[in-house]
């Protein structure tokens, strides 16, 4: 079953068409990497699916719930109750983490479970401890975000997103604010999650990272999906001229 279905998605900023008729699916357990040059529309696509931006037309369906459809060329969004349900099915990891600085690591993770899902503090804490262990941060529960390294902060933000038990996890350039040495930490965590069949979509600038972690790659340019497919195929043996050109520039 497709967890995420995107159909004919379009978005315009003023005169600039940023997304032109984007369609793709993400299946349960898939790890999808979205790559492409700056300005290709990958961030906007990401923001539209995560409801940080509203698309102009098209359809987005998240595990059977319609977030938006298009009727008579106008986008129709689901009632806010449904949007809230969808919101909780999607986990999001930001480029610059966006942890809550005034809360400890533990508070960051249990904030939404206790106040949004209304779990008991005990239950949320037990779950958070498991997540921290998984992230290799069990000793940092009482620390504040400013006391952690970038890689550690990013792992806390992954734990925070996972605490809501999302069906699909999105990463917005998860390593671009990190030291190249710290990228490995995040890569390890994502691989770990992939083993558990977590469905993930990763927007990234790092080709090596995408190649290593993804089992499906989408290459975007100029608001279109130029090519999508198996990472070995796309990175090693693409027939598409535009993809070749882009990858070549990266390899140099």
């Amino acid at each position, binding site marked *: 079953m497709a967890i995420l279905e995107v159909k004919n998605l379009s978005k315009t900023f003023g005169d600039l068409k940023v997304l032109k008729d984007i369609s793709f699916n993400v299946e349960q357990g898939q790890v999808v990497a979205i790559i492409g040059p700056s300005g290709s529309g990958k961030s906007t696509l990401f923001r539209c699916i995560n409801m940080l931006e509203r698309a102009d037309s098209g359809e987005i369906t998240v595990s059977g719930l319609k977030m938006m459809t298009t009727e008579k060329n106008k986008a129709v969004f689901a009632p806010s109750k449904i949007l809230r349900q969808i*919101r909780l099915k999607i986990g999001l990891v930001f480029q*610059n983490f966006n942890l*809550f*600085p*005034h809360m400890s690591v533990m508070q960051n993770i249990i*904030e939404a479970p206790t106040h949004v899902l209304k779990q008991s503090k005990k239950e949320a804490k037990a779950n958070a401890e498991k997540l921290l262990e998984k992230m290799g941060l069990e000793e940092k529960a009482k620390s504040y*975000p*400013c006391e952690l390294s970038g890689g550690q902060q990013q792992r806390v933000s992954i734990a925070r997103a996972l605490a*809501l038990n999302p069906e699909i996890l999105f990463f917005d350039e998860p390593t671009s604010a990190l030291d190249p040495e710290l990228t490995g930490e995040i890569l390890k965590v994502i691989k770990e999650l992939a083993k558990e069949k977590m469905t993930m979509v990763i927007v990234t600038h790092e080709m090596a990272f995408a190649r290593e972690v993804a089992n499906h790659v989408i290459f975007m340019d100029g608001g279109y999906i130029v090519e999508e497919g198996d990472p070995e195929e796309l990175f090693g043996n693409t027939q598409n001229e535009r993809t070749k050109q882009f990858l070549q520039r990266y390899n140099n």
Partner: protein
Amino acid sequence: MNFDDIKNVAEILLQYLPNTLKLFAWTLVLSIPVGVIVTWLKKCRFKPISWLTNLYILIMRGTPLMLQIIAVYYAIPMLMAGARKSGADNWFYTLLGKINTRDENYMFIALVVAFVLNYAAYFAEIFRGGIESIPVGQYEASSMLGMTKMQTFFRIILPQVVKRVIPATSNEVIVLVKDTSLANVIAFAEITLKSKQMMNTYSSIVPLFVAGVFYFIMNAIVTVAFVYIEKKFNYYK
């Protein structure tokens, strides 16, 4: 002036210190919540309300507090005089007529009204700056976690705003301690008025210095208090 005279001056000023402190405390306690409301009105999406709030802030910050005190204090007597001239006889003027402008309480209320109106405008701008300095990522993260707007504001944004506005607020509170001296303009019996009177009695400038020492000590206490509060919030960056 000899030492005994100075002691005498200090003792008299000490008697009137509660008046200064009362004005300071009432202004502080009321102008902060009023400031929050003004911030909220300024950020109101219904534009006319936001414009009116801007006009209010412009006037309060753009004119001297001393003039504002005089204006508020004389507003009611002037309205009463106007009412008498025009021979109006409605509930509003009847109500005005019941106010005794020579009453100590009336004077104090007029002062608090003028101070709160003025200080709320400054606090509102400080709070607005604080709210707008919170990165948009904090709102995005809250929405990603399914938090409501109320939860986002009270649990995520506000605690961070409080930390950020403490330094600017401490400035404002220190100025408020000194601004209470402006109440002498309508002959409110606080320490500046009394020290001016004693300056005449003793034909000496020393009573003013003694008053200065009083303000200095009050502000030393305010400063220490804010250093303590800032430290309390230092557990995160």
